[in-house]
């Protein structure tokens, strides 16, 4: 299981990568994709000027066995969505921290990483459940 150091983690098994241009890339963690199993559908939000509040529904990820909702890990606007996931949702299984990203968000807050977990903290969190 991978826990890269260059992203921040949430307890809801999402990761956030802060880009140089101030945008935040959001995806689900390796642990999350492993729990879901074979991903077959991804319902993404529309790119919009509407600000999404933290914990509002962002996306829906469906695997063969279950469906899971992804909530916005921060408040902000969705400025870009990963359209490749529409025809190739299995990319999330294969490369959750890379080509399997979900959206780019423009954060409303100055420090979008506040309160998020480091790789070590997140690894501890998911290993507690085992």
């Amino acid at each position, binding site marked *: 299981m991978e826990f890269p150091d260059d992203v921040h983690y949430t307890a809801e098994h999402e990761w956030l990568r802060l880009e140089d241009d101030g945008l935040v890339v959001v995806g689900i963690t390796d642990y999350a994709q492993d729990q879901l199993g*074979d991903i077959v559908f991804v319902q993404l939000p529309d790119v919009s000027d509407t600000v999404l509040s933290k914990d509002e529904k962002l996306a829906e990820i469906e695997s063969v*066995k279950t469906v899971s909702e992804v909530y916005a890990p921060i408040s902000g606007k969705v400025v870009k969505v990963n359209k490749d996931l529409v025809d190739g949702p299995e990319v999330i299984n294969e490369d959750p921290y890379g080509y399997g990203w979900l959206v780019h968000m423009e954060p409303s807050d100055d420090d979008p990483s506040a309160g998020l977990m480091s790789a070590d903290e997140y690894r501890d969190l998911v290993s507690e459940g085992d």
Partner: protein
Amino acid sequence: MSDGAARTPLYAAHLDAGARMVEFSGWSMPLQYSSIVKEHNAVRTAGGMFDASHMGEVELRGPAAIDACERLFTSELRKLSVGRAKYGLMCEPSGGVMDDVIVYRVEEQRYMVCLNAGNVEGDLAWINEHAGSFCEVEDRSADTALIALQGPAAATVLGELVEGAADLPRFACREIILEGETALMARTGYTGEDGFELFLPSVRAESVWSVLVAAGGPLGVEPAGLGARDTLRLEAGLPLYGHELALDISPLEAGLGRFVRDDIATAIGGEALAAERERGSKRCLLGLLPDGAIARQGHDVLAGDRVVGRVTSGTHSPSLGRPVAMALVDAESATAGLSVDVRGRIKPADVTALPFYVRQR
């Protein structure tokens, strides 16, 4: 993982193989070893091995065992030859389904009935109540393991281990010696592929499993979990108790009329079923091809904005590469122009004949 869940004799083997375990009908069972889709495809193209030891086995023995079977089960069993098996339903007096079973005629006066894990307790009480006074009823569930070997390579793999296995006809069964113990080999299964089910003493489960892993591995046979078992049976249009079958669903509604014999009035529930057959069923089971979303159990089926039924099972079909579903729908609405309500999103769903997948012979 609940600590209270029962373990099959293959529990340790599953953990060794890296299985993700889930609780199913009170049993700790492998959901998947690697990926549901990968295991599914292995069964369709080569083979898969399933632990089905959670299922129940009960034997009915004696001169009147056949009378008991005909009273308890809906199918035509009186003409079943020794060494043959038949699918059937066990119904309440109302005609509602208590369980779906396979009856194996092992000897002249010995029938073995395979039961669903979640129904074993209730089934046994019912069978004892209705058959216990005129034939011998023995629950063999605790000391019987069940390994299913399914897929196009199954006959080659088992043929190397058991003489004549490849020549066993479909729905035939025969007692064999496997790893030094008597086992029942049957050409039955739950995947829509050719294959075998091996009922064997629990104490031999691990060694038979390893022998099959060793023999099947080089041919692409791999362990497969409950996840793949579900997608495989759904593609094959096979019902699952608690989904397509339940106490409030009749076998005729579930499209299983061919397993309800002509003189059904002599079976428990037979009068209700005969009457339903006479007047026609109110509901029927359909295959649906939902567009762009997976409809799952409990989702409403709509004709326009009217609810006309509900989805009983739905998944992503690995073989078709698209969502498929089965649904129980009002008979007069079971035509075209249907849609499904997938968590508030209305998705059109073409009606299609079952099964979704038929193997190439």
